């Protein structure tokens, strides 16, 4: 259903524009990183694309969308995973059954993805007693199980330690390798460099540039981006 076309996309709340006239085309293939400082509007942009928020202006067009619900072909992983009060397996099965899969089919698929994210031993443990890193891996499994064309990730490692972050990044790459388009927000330059193929740099609700990863770090096109890189890099 890609490319995803954003057309003068605007979102305001209480008189202030959080997203301010963003136009971009996001193609199938490369891992897209939405980068920017805190409060730039990255998460809001992602929620608009995913359909959790309704734009107050502009358009979102999924070109080549197959018949039916575009929501069916995308999934999202949030910064703080929301786990249902049931087993890890049941959390994955829940999403699959909402998507119309039979119980049997859902359980088989769920066990498969839990194995990929390394949670097969925890399948029958209550999801909410898992560690933060495990819960985020479970959230990835739940999203990926749906077989989305596009997977949105909103700062998926912001609350995690380095080891868990490493696990999550590996899983994201596995999902990418399986052919799912990755669109991820982060404010972490190291992570952007490790996981990204192209950067959408957002500042103050505006798209400053859309640049391939190598060029972004060598010669960012916008003054905001070079200031961000300069300001952030000494700590990475």
């Amino acid at each position: 259903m890609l490319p995803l076309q954003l057309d003068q996309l605007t979102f305001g709340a209480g008189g202030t524009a959080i997203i301010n006239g963003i136009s971009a085309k996001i193609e199938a293939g490369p891992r897209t990183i939405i980068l920017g400082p805190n409060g730039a509007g990255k998460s809001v942009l992602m929620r608009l694309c995913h359909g959790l928020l309704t734009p107050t202006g502009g358009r979102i067009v999924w070109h080549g969308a197959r018949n039916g619900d575009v929501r069916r072909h995308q999934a999202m992983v949030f910064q703080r995973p929301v786990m249902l009060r049931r087993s890890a397996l049941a959390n994955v099965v829940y999403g699959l059954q909402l998507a119309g899969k039979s119980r049997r089919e859902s359980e088989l698929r769920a066990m498969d993805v839990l194995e990929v994210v390394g949670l097969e031993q925890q399948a029958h443990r209550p999801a909410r007693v898992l560690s933060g890193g495990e819960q985020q891996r479970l959230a990835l499994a739940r999203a990926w199980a749906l077989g989305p064309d596009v997977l949105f990730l909103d700062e998926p490692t912001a609350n995690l330690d380095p080891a868990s972050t490493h696990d999550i990044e590996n899983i994201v790459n596995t999902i990418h390798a399986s052919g799912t388009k990755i669109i991820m927000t982060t404010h972490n330059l190291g992570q952007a460099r490790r996981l990204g193929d192209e950067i959408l740099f957002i500042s103050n609700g505006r798209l400053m540039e859309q640049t391939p990863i190598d060029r972004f770090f060598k010669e960012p096109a916008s003054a905001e981006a070079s200031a961000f890189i300069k300001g952030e890099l000494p700590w990475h």
Partner: protein
Amino acid sequence: MTGLGEAFAAAWALVIGFDSGLAGIVLLSLQVSLSAALIATLIGLPLGAAIAVERFPGRQVLIVLLNALMGLPPVVVGLLIYLLLSRAGPLGSIGILFTPQAMVIAQTVLIVPIIAALSRQTIEDAWREYSEQLHSLGARRLSAAMTLIWDTRFSLLTIVLAGFGRAAAEVGAVMIVGGNIDGVTRVMTTTIALETSKGDLPLALGLGIVLISLVIVLNALAAVIREVAQRRYG
């Protein structure tokens, strides 16, 4: 105060000895209040869930009203149901005034707002946490509401127990619509009121002991459920 001591001893003997008169009253109390709690749950829980996840005009007013109705005075509920069910009333023809059914109806009316208002709060809090995730997974309102009810089931059980406790402990409503008829509509609270005014303290006290024990057991049960659920499901 030897009278009090004697009354306690006699009351204790009645409780320990499973006095048949006392047992019948306790049994009817449980029947009426459990039925009321069950029916009120079937009405109040879906109502609370619907208000929690739906957005409609007048919603805030409804919430305030529902919260206010939690403090409904039992005697007023009794009076209203009495007027409805009395021979000249709109529902007089079914002829259930002064029967346990009428008492169930009165207590149900009394605790529906409690169960609806408290479950609305619980489910709405959960909804705030879950809504983006459930939307993202493609859950429609109805299935989202079912998920929220299931995920808050232990808190909701505590709410139902609170409703039952309120029903079992009230006296005004059942007194008016039941009539406190010996062997037919006499429950713990109405018996305590009657026997106290008659001066038969042992029976009144015995029932008081049972009633208070029941309330303590219920609260202990609620605490245990919460504790176990917290430990097992996080």
